[in-house]
């Protein structure tokens, strides 16, 4: 697969603030890639460097194998959809969409055709003569997308484009964006702090933290096989269990924690003389009234919270840590004050971190 955008050990420093740190990334042609992370993780700065609004302090950015570090935005075949739309308020919808072509001095008759085609693509036929102030948030968003796509950029950059919309509209636009991207076979780089948005739309998600990519992969891999404590905590909910390696039983590791034993699949990637941190998703936690082979962590049910489609059970362990378990069925919910044993299928626990043993 060809990569459209390549970032090689890119750094961005403002004063003594290291915003992007040795970031490397390859974006494949036609893929929907999302940079996901909390605010201040450097995702927007990364996007702005790709767009040309910021110049990297160090490292290189390639657009189709051509180094573009210092190429100004107006010369890059890359377009951005901004968070606040940034539609030109003094121009009509049609003139907004036509702007890029006008800058390229495309013939007037051709501009007219292409604008009409673009407006129909984003389902805004008949809105050409309106001013942006006469549009709703969702319509403005479509104009912003049309205005960028008409230039046929090699990559479309989207900087939290849906964050100003209300929940329902946001979900609808997520769907439309994804459909548009598939239909046109464009490369999208999408920035968001909303993990659900990232999960729904992306072919690959890059989870960013402290100016670097912690993990990149298919949304399902990111969720099911988080590689770091940050990723497992940031994406969805996680229960963390930590302890020291005790012994290997049939390719499974028995780990000794403060609250008792638990078991994870053996992982040859790690040395065993470490303190291990394992993450287990709430839906994978199993509760039983009697201990299960390989597990001896016990606790007390302290609350059952009904949350629409599922119930969240909170179990307090002996050292007062609270464990979350979600149950999607109506049956099998244990009553409050019930003493329970915690276990899970071995493959559902993922080792996300290790620490050297304290001597």
């Amino acid at each position, binding site marked *: 697969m060809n990569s459209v955008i390549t970032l090689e050990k890119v750094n961005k420093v403002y004063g003594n603030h290291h915003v992007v740190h040795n970031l490397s990334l390859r974006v494949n042609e036609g893929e929907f890639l999302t940079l996901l992370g909390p605010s201040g993780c450097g995702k927007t700065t990364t996007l702005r460097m790709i*767009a*040309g*609004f910021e110049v990297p302090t160090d490292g290189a950015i390639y657009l189709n194998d051509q180094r573009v570090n210092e190429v*100004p*935005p*107006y010369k890059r075949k*890359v*377009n*951005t959809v*901004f968070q*606040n739309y*940034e*539609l*030109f*308020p*003094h121009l009509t919808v049609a003139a907004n969409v036509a*702007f*890029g072509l006008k*800058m*390229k001095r495309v013939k007037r008759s051709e501009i007219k055709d292409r604008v009409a085609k673009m407006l129909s693509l984003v389902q805004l036929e008949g809105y050409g003569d309106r001013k942006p102030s006469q549009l709703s948030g969702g319509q403005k968003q479509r104009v912003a997308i049309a*205005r*960028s796509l008409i*230039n046929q950029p090699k990559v479309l950059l989207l900087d939290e484009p849906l964050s100003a919309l209300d929940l329902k509209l946001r979900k609808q636009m997520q769907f439309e964006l994804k459909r548009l991207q598939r239909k046109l076979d464009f490369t999208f780089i999408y920035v968001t702090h909303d993990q659900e948005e990232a999960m729904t739309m992306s072919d690959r998600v890059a989870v960013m933290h402290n100016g670097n990519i912690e993990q990149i992969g298919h949304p399902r891999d990111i969720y099911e096989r988080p590689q770091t404590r940050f990723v497992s905590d940031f994406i969805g909910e996680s229960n963390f269990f930590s302890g020291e390696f005790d012994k290997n039983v049939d390719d499974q590791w028995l780990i000794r924690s403060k609250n008792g034993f638990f078991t994870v699949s053996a992982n040859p990637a790690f040395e065993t003389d470490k303190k291990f941190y394992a993450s287990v998703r709430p839906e994978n936690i199993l509760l039983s009234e009697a201990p299960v082979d390989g597990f001896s962590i016990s606790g007390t049910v302290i609350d059952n919270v009904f949350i629409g489609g599922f119930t969240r059970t909170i179990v307090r362990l002996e050292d007062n840590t609270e464990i979350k378990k979600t149950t999607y069925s109506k049956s099998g919910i244990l009553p409050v004050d019930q003493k329970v044993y915690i276990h899970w299928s071995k493959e559902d626990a993922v080792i996300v971190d290790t620490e050297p043993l304290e001597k």
Partner: protein
Amino acid sequence: MLKKINIFKWFTILPVYLWMLLFILIPNLYIFAMSFMKRGIYGGVEWGFSIKNYIGIFHGMYMSIFFQSMLLAFETTVICLLIAYPFTMFIMNKSKIFQTIAIATVTIPFMISSLVRLFAWITLLRTNGVINTLLLHLHLIHQPLSILYTNGAVILGMVYMLLPFMILPIYTSMEKIDGGLIEAAKDLGARDLNVISNILIPLTIPGIFAGSILVFIPSLGYFFVSDMLGGSQTILIGSLIRDEFLTARNWPFGAALSIFLIILTLVVLRIYSKLGGKMDDLGV
């Protein structure tokens, strides 16, 4: 409680109304009435009604003064605009502190009497003034240039006096522009000049408009600038009115000229608001 507030409100606002009544409305009405009367033999006015004063205005000589005055005001406005716009664009790219200092530098001189500042210009421009002395010493010229008492000197003085009234509204409207719009334009392929012509200027039209009005109208009436820097060379509407009152002692004709100037101003304002200008932007 409500009533108390009302009394307090009236108590604070009343002086303003009284002031406006005494010093603005009544004098203007007085001038308006006077413009229909006859001149007294020894100055002053005689009662009676006539529109002779207004007919007198349309005499060729006065019309040419009006025309000359308007032309000068127009030139002043254009020059102010040509200086103020690039200046504002320049400071807009700087830090907030720099902007504040620059705007303060523009406005602070206006706390000094305008006469004093014009005298300073005279010392600079006159035959044996600073500029001529400097140029002579540098052997760039062999005879002093006559700069003072020319039309150019008057325009220079007008521009100097009125420039802040152009800069401030343009600055205000440029400050409101979302920086993201400029980034969006660049992202879509606009170079700097395209950004200026397609984004910056259309979005600062209110400021350009308001500034032009705020410069154009006063420059019709700033007779002291042409008196001090133009000598007898330039006669403007302002100087004409003053001369009618103080030298020719034809108060009713002076009054008619004043009313005519007011009407002219109102016409300009009317055009301004017809074109979409807002009175708020003028500070009215």
